[in-house]
Each structure stands twice: as C-alpha cells, then as structure tokens.
C-alpha cells in the first residue's frame, strides 16, 4: 500500500499475513517489537502525530478498508484513548486492540462508553511501574468487557524497547487468536 495522506503519514507497509495497523505519534516507538511482528503479520505503521484529527481519522478508515474487512490495531502511550474512541464509533474496523503502556483514562464519558466496546483489548504495562498508577491501569480492565491486563517483567513504560521479544510474543498471540490467547497451544512434551 502506498497512498499519499494529508493528515496521517504511512511509515511502512511490511511483512506477510493478517493486517495489523500500528499507530504511533511522530516519535518512533516499539520499533524492535514491530520488526519481530512482521514475521507473522502484515504490519502497516502510521504516524498520526500527537493526536488523530477528524480528517486523519477519515484517512485512517480509508487505509484500513484497503487492508481488509477488519484489522488489528496496536498503539503506544497517549494514542490509546483515541484508538478506543475510533473503535467505539466504528465497531467493525478493529478485530483486536493492543494498547502499550496507555495513560490513565481522564475522560469519564469515554470510560462509561467503553462498556459497549466490541473488539477485545490487551493492555500491556511494565512490571516496574510507569506513569500510569495501578488504580488507573485497572480501569481499562474494569471498563472494557473483553479486556486483558498483562505485565511485561523487568520493564517500565519503555517495555517495547526494553523487552521487544516478550512484547512481540504477546502481540502475536493476541492478534492471532484474540481471547483464545488465554489458552496455550505450546506443547510441553519433551520427547516422543
């Protein structure tokens, strides 16, 4: 995909497999984890700036439509709440959402509306803590019906850079089978 947008910028379209949209601000983020994810998914990276404007949202929806009937969406940091709003307004766009180190939900109206969110959501936080207080990170799980909280050991808010393999593994499993990721399919058998 190579389309010129005015309000968002497509950084890269790489990898093979089911489509995943990685939304980030202008600051590069999670590069190593995304690189690993490309082995199993077609990952399209968008720079949406500091926030997604209404025009940018329209461009994103157009880009998603070209990728398939629905996409997995990954976002980092402060974009989390805009991704959730997008998924609320367009329930069939995302088949799964992963939020990496999202901040506290300050918008109480949004928090109340999240009860109606359709896609499953995985929120990833560092085990060493970060900017989001424990009570605030719990809100994601309490407010979103199909929501999962996961800690990446020995990391903080920079988890995707600090342990990219661990983050990519969680992303891969969740994007592949969504809520089925709770059940491992990894064999523990040592020898036949």
């Amino acid at each position, binding site marked *: 995909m190579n389309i010129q947008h005015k309000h968002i910028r497509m950084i890269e379209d790489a990898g093979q497999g089911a489509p995943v949209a990685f939304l980030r601000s202008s600051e590069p983020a999670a590069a190593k984890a995304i690189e690993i994810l490309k082995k199993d998914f077609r990952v399209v990276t968008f720079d949406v700036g500091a926030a997604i404007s209404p025009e940018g949202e329209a461009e994103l929806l157009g880009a998603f439509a070209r990728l398939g009937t629905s996409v997995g969406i990954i976002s980092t940091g402060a974009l989390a709440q805009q991704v959730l709003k997008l998924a609320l307004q367009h329930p069939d766009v995302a088949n799964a959402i992963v939020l990496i180190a999202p901040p506290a939900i300050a918008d109480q109206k949004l928090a109340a509306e999240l009860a109606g969110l359709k896609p499953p959501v995985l929120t990833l936080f560092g*085990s060493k803590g970060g900017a989001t207080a424990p009570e605030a990170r719990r809100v994601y799980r309490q407010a979103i019906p199909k929501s*999962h909280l996961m*800690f990446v050991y020995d990391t903080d808010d920079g988890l995707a850079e600090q342990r990219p393999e661990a983050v990519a*593994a969680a992303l891969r499993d969740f994007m592949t089978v969504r809520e089925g990721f709770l*059940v491992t399919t990894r064999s523990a058998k040592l020898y036949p």
Partner: protein
Amino acid sequence: MKAALFSPMRYNGPSAGAGWPIASTVYSAEAAERSMQSYLRQFKLADEVGFDWVTVAEHHYAPFSLNPNPMVTAGALTQVVKRAKIALLGATIPILNPVRVAEEFAMIDTLSSGRVVAGMLRGTPNEYVTYNINPTESRERFEEALSLIRMCWTETEPFGWQGRYYDYRTISIWPRPVQQPYPRIYMSGSSPESAEFAARNRVSLGFAFTNVPQAKKSSDYYREQAGKFGWTPTEEDVIYRVVVHVADTDDLALEQFTDASKDAPRTSLTMANRDLEASVATSGYYGRDREAQRQRLMGGALKERIETGQVVLGSPETCVKQIERIHRDLGAGIIDMTLAHDLGDTTLHAIELLGTKVLPRIRELH
C-alpha cells in the same frame, strides 16, 4: 531480641549411607510418622513457652529433612501453633511455580489469621537437581519469581505475566494474604548480590549456615546498600540462624550434644555431595564471592563453632551469654534457634528451658 525455633525435621529412623540424595531402601514409614509427630509437639511447646516464631524450611531427597514442602507443614502448624508466627525460611522459589507459592502463602496467612512470615530462598545448591532446574539461572529466576509473587499479592485485577522464565496469561489468586499489602518477606543474604537485591527491593535478610563474622560482613554491606536506596533496616530485618542445645548444666548440654552428633553428618546438606556441589559452583550459582560462600558451608570443630557463633551450647546462663554476644556483634533482631537433633524428652526439656530461662533474658536485648 525475638526468638524463633527452627527444626529441619530430621528423620529419626533407619537410613542408608551418607551423601545426597539418599536411597530409601530401608526407609520406615512408622519412623517418619513418629518423627513428624515429634516435631509438631516441639513446635506446639515452643508456642506455649513463648517463642515468637516457629520456623520450617524446604529440603529434598534426604533424611536430613522430612520437609520437601514446608507449605504443607505450615498448614498443619496453623492448627497446632496458636500464637507464634509461622515462618517459612523458606520456600525455594526458583525451583517452584511462583503463582502456586503466592497462593500457598496466602492460604497459610488466612489459616493462621495473618501469622505467616514469607521466606523466599534460592535454596542449597543440591536443590537445583531436585526438579532439574539449571543453577546458572538461579538468581534471575529468584528475582523474577519474587516480583511475580508480589504482583500476585497486590494486583486485584486478573493479570497476565510476560516474564523471562515464567509466563501466565491470567492470574487472580484466592485467598489473598491477610497481612497487607503482604506478609513480611525474608531472603538469604550471604552473597553480595543478595544483599544488593534485598536492599534495592526492601526485603529483610536471613543468615544461615554461616558464622557471626561472615554474617556481620554481609549484614553491614546490606545496611550500607539500603542506605543508598534511602532506607534503614531495623533489627527485625535481620535473622540469624544458629544451632542451639541447652541443658540444666554446661557439662550435661555438652554431653548430650556430643552424643547426638556422633552419628550425624559432618557436613551441611550442601557439602554432602561434593561432586554435585562442585558442578553447581562452576555454574555461577554462588556469584562473585564464590570461595567465601563455599567456605562458610564447611564444618568445623565444636569449640570453634561456638566461638564464631555457629553453635549456642550450655546451661541457660551460658546460652544467654552466647546469644548476647551474637546480638552485640551482629545486631540481628531475631535469632532462629535450630534444634539439630531430636532427643525426645531431652529436646522438650531444652525447649522449656529456652522458654523459661533464656527467652525472658534475650527479649531485653535491643
């Protein structure tokens, strides 16, 4: 100063050979049952005569200890020990399932109405053979397991864990600890790496299979490191475990202890299998202070062991003096008194003497 009574829960019956592991060819179920009942009686008495804690620990594959799962023992103790804290010093967390450990500690804390003390150890080197865990990874596994256990105790929403050694997709333990946010945690602190980790993570320290000069060196380093992280350990943050035998007179105590020691192993569990220990040593298990760590596990003459605070032996008056010296030199707030031998009524009498004539005196030490 507080006092704990520790028993390795040695098997008192026929057994074959020395070393580790030990064959169970001549094992007697009746002797094992009798041994366990005897230890439950000792712990019950310790509670009645005023010990602050009773202590159990995990060891495997040898008559040295009938306690491969101290959680089970602690569960039984919750029904026998009504007042004292029940300390597990400890669970060997790098070889166990950390979530299970968190669940079991929470169960014991609930069963005991908040009296559990959570010792988390790396264990003796031989324990890595028990469940076939690579000792090279011992310290990293320990640190991650402890972090996960704390998260199990504090996170109230179901959560997943993407670790280096452990991964879980959803965890939500029931019951939860009675003590909030969680029971006091102790770890072994003999190596510099352990002291640094404990200081960084505000964990209390225990010293066992060592002597007072070595423990003091480690304890001083722990306090120095804690200062760097902005806190000051209290006396109760340091436990010192020591072998104790007390009788009505010094001569009687010496005679009873010497007789009982005749058939006992000359070395610690760690050094019971030298080849195995040497293999573990080359794995990096001990850390950067390897030779000092190994040296402290070697046995010694009784006189030397008393002088260096490895053994407290004698009449109540003599024992008080020896404990006072340990307290003065080390500054430990809790002395974990090890009953190295089960001598039946003699041991019960020793526990009574400790409770009535030693504990009231050492309680004044600050």
